[in-house]
């Protein structure tokens, strides 16, 4: 049926991509919307209500099989009846899936896709992504179809549901057993606030000397009614904070009213995550730090002296 196929681990992510698909169709791109699912995957009834024409239903994953083991079954189906576009939610698994299927189809894959547009006059699918850690924006158009895109969750907003609207179900065959087997799963405990929803984000960088010192940043966040986040070294190398608090190219994108980076140097990969912030502030002892060129208000000074003083000054200007 050509059209658009959507692949996401979670219902919410699939609904976002369904909306992206509906937008393309409204702009004139032809074809139906099909969404992949499996027992434990996105809920078929919600996919129908969210606008899917068809649900491509995979059998439950085999014992000790990673979810990626589905890829060959999807690839086989895509070979038989190629869609024009396949949209993947760019989670770790989604990116793996997308690259495997793109490799199998020898198709183009626009990873980290930030925008999609159908130009009906020229019949062009315009895709946008970042380059050089976010320093550049690249707009491309596929030269061949099918084409794939991996889209970061949160890029599109999901639309309203039509309760009772149903999608056709098409069953896909089970994939062959994967050569990769799962030995153990250690689910992550969800901790902390949702930083992407916070009005104020206080971001700690490597300028902090030890994990206990983050209390200073936390105090500032509490005072401003905000959430604490961090740069990649703090979550990935030092493991002082969980990875879902990491802001930037390989982490989350935030759009708060106020972002304050403390002991953050301001490398482009990090700045990419705060482009949508209304006001950017920074505290850094190095006046040459690149963050100052990317900040509205910058305080040059040692964070260990600035933070207590700043908390004091804020308390004085905040009416009790």
């Amino acid at each position, binding site marked *: 049926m050509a059209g658009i196929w959507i692949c996401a681990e979670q219902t919410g992510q699939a609904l976002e991509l369904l909306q992206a698909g509906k937008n393309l169709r409204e702009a004139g791109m032809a074809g139906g919307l099909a969404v992949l699912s499996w027992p434990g995957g996105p809920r078929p009834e919600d996919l129908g209500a969210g606008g899917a024409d068809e649900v491509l239903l995979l059998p439950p994953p085999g014992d000790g099989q990673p979810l990626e083991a589905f890829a060959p079954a999807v690839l086989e189906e895509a070979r038989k009846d190629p869609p024009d576009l396949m949209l993947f939610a760019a989670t770790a698994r989604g990116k793996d899936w997308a690259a495997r299927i793109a490799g199998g189809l020898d198709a183009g894959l626009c990873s980290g896709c930030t925008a999609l547009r159908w130009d009906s006059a020229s019949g062009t699918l315009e895709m946008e992504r*970042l380059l050089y850690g976010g320093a550049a924006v690249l707009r491309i158009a596929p030269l061949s179809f099918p084409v794939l895109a991996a889209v970061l969750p949160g890029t599109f907003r999901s639309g309203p549901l039509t309760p009772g609207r149903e999608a056709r179900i098409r069953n896909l065959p089970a994939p062959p057993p994967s*050569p990769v087997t799962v030995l153990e799963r250690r689910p992550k405990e969800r901790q902390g606030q949702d930083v992407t929803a916070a009005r104020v984000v206080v971001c700690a960088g490597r300028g902090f000397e030890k994990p206990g010192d983050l209390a200073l940043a936390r105090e500032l966040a509490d005072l401003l009614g905000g959430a604490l986040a961090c740069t990649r070294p703090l979550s990935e190398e030092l493991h002082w904070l969980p990875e879902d608090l990491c802001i930037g190219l390989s982490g989350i994108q935030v759009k708060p009213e106020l972002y304050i980076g403390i002991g953050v140097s301001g490398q482009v990969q990090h700045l990419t995550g705060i482009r949508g912030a209304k006001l950017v502030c920074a505290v850094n002892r190095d006046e040459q730090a690149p963050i100052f060129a990317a900040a509205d208000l910058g305080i040059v000074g040692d964070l260990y002296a600035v933070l207590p003083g700043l908390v004091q000054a804020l308390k004085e200007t905040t009416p009790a």
Partner: protein
Amino acid sequence: MPVFVACFKWVVDEAYIRRTSAGELDLSSVGYKISDYDRNALEEAARLKESAGGSVVAVTVGIPEATKGVKDALSRGADQAIYAADPSFGTLEASGTATILAEVIRTRVGTYDLILCGEGSSDLYDQQVGIRLAALLGIPCISFVQKLDLEAGRVVAERRLEDGIERVAATLPAVVTLLPDINVPRIPGVKDTLSASRKPVVTIGREELGLPAEPRFRILSLSASRLERQCERFGSDEADLRRFAGALRQKGILR
């Protein structure tokens, strides 16, 4: 003896990219570097060799100027390098890079046990070359690995996913793509640099490879990201911090 293949890319150092007043990308004063996470791939390969024996082959696809990168890679523990070079390789897409890597590894390395890639390259950050390479070679792939071990005939790895850690095993040969916290890359010393220049390098020209891969995309535009901020500075004395707090208040941030 096991053969470890580390794939690395020689990339523009993004810290030197500027934006012209016309909003164009200014690459005139950039330097180059080994892509950040590929240093982790080279390091992990060197460590595996130190513990399991065998050898490390560093493989790259790049522009002729990348010879400096080849030497850099050899100073990080690799025993030899294979370098596919052509001026046109600077603008390859992930599909094209993976095709060339697959051909080079198949024809020039021959037998290998583990191929190590970074999670993503610093310039394109496509996060797909390693996974596509595995698909092309028809071997298992374990992506987003934070820890790995070799056991008899297989690789056991911890993948970090949004919902937690998944410990998986795959038979060799296999491809792994590595997260940066898997190790701390070494800083090559003078001795490493000296011995690097004595290590064998096989350079392969475009004409020695099969038909070049067709691009899958055309470029509509490439522009510098816009960053417009006020850039107002404050000191750290009490008066300045009060002035800063006042500025936040004035902007309606403080409630």
